[in-house]
């Protein structure tokens, strides 16, 4: 099975770079570790890999995971589609911001 990798590029918010352990991230997001692993594989969540192989997750990605789950629950999208939706939403937000800056 081919899984398309869709990197979500989003400038991290201030303070959002603090890293959480996998267990801590799962506890706070309410996501099962296996599902989190899938998110990483699909490029929906970006993890930092330690030399030992352990994964760490930026605090700011808790909000991303909540958005993923809201889109899934609210619109019935699958996770690959959600990756695309998130990417496009972020891009629109950035474009709207630039547009506002230019017009003012």
């Amino acid at each position, binding site marked *: 099975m081919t899984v398309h990798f869709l990197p979500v590029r989003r400038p991290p918010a201030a303070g959002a770079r603090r890293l959480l352990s996998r267990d801590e991230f799962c506890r706070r997001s*309410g996501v099962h570790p296996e599902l989190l692993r899938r998110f990483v594989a699909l490029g929906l969540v970006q993890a930092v890999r330690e030399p030992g192989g352990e994964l760490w997750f930026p605090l700011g990605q808790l909000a991303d995971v909540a958005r993923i789950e809201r889109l899934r629950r609210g619109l019935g999208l*699958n996770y690959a589609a959600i990756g695309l939706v998130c990417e496009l*939403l972020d891009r629109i937000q950035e474009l709207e911001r630039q547009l506002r800056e230019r017009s*003012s």
Partner: protein
Amino acid sequence: MARDFYEVLGVSRDAGSEEIQQAFRRLARANHPDVNRDPAAEERFKEINEAYQVLSDPEERRKYDRFGENFRKVPDDWEQPVGAGVGGFRGGGRPRTGPASGFTSAGFDDLGGSIDIEDLLGGMFGRGRARAGPIAGADQEVELPLTVEEAFRGGPRQVTLTGTAGPRTYTVTIPPGVTDGQRIRLAGEGGRGVGAGEPGDLYMVARLLPHPRYRVSGRDITVDLPLAPWEAALGGSVPVPTPAGGTKVEVPPGSSTGRRLRLRGQGMPNPRGAPGDLFAEIAIMVPPRPTEAERELFARLAEVSDFDPRRGG
């Protein structure tokens, strides 16, 4: 109280199930809290889901058509005693509990029929497609229109948001010199979470209204400074309006239209740094109906002067 479900989905009462489904999908996409950050959109999204949950279920829809908004109080076997009249049902039936949440995923099971990773995961994590765990609410945004004077002064301001759950009023403290697009965060006042999920934040986005006199760019303010020809030629101290109430600017002799006089630090205040500057942009005005004496003097000036503004001098 609740709006009519057909009205919510914008369909007629005799709409077919396909039409209802189309209307629901279109509205759900447009009002999803992550697509539309308006707080009103989230309420619409919940309404749409509730309406669709009922109208997409033939049995529930029949009850709704028959009993209107009291349909949830109707027992499941209402069709047998219907001949006895409606009155008998009041309070007699067991109360149906409402949907567990507005974000139900009912009706999506027919989407994306191909086998993919989701189907595998669906079996692994709880029943159906919805995960049981808590989900944090979405952040929301509302625009906060401010006049230049209001943005300059800052201070507390009452903001009322209307919604189906009743109006909510917030007192927002606007920082003096707030810039266009600056976001004021109200923690935990955004979209509601699912289950034990934390609510999102509500952001008030400052929007500077166009002003007849001031043009604001970042923290710098530009204001037109109309001058009589002799003021521009001879220079002098001239009053200039500012959002703080006005000040005086020293016009250097020989200033032509378009020259910008900078008043350092007289622009928008900045709580965390240097304030912006105020620019007075000179615009020379002439008397529209000169008196005889003025006309004479201008004519005299034209005779005496060899100044030619079109010769770059």
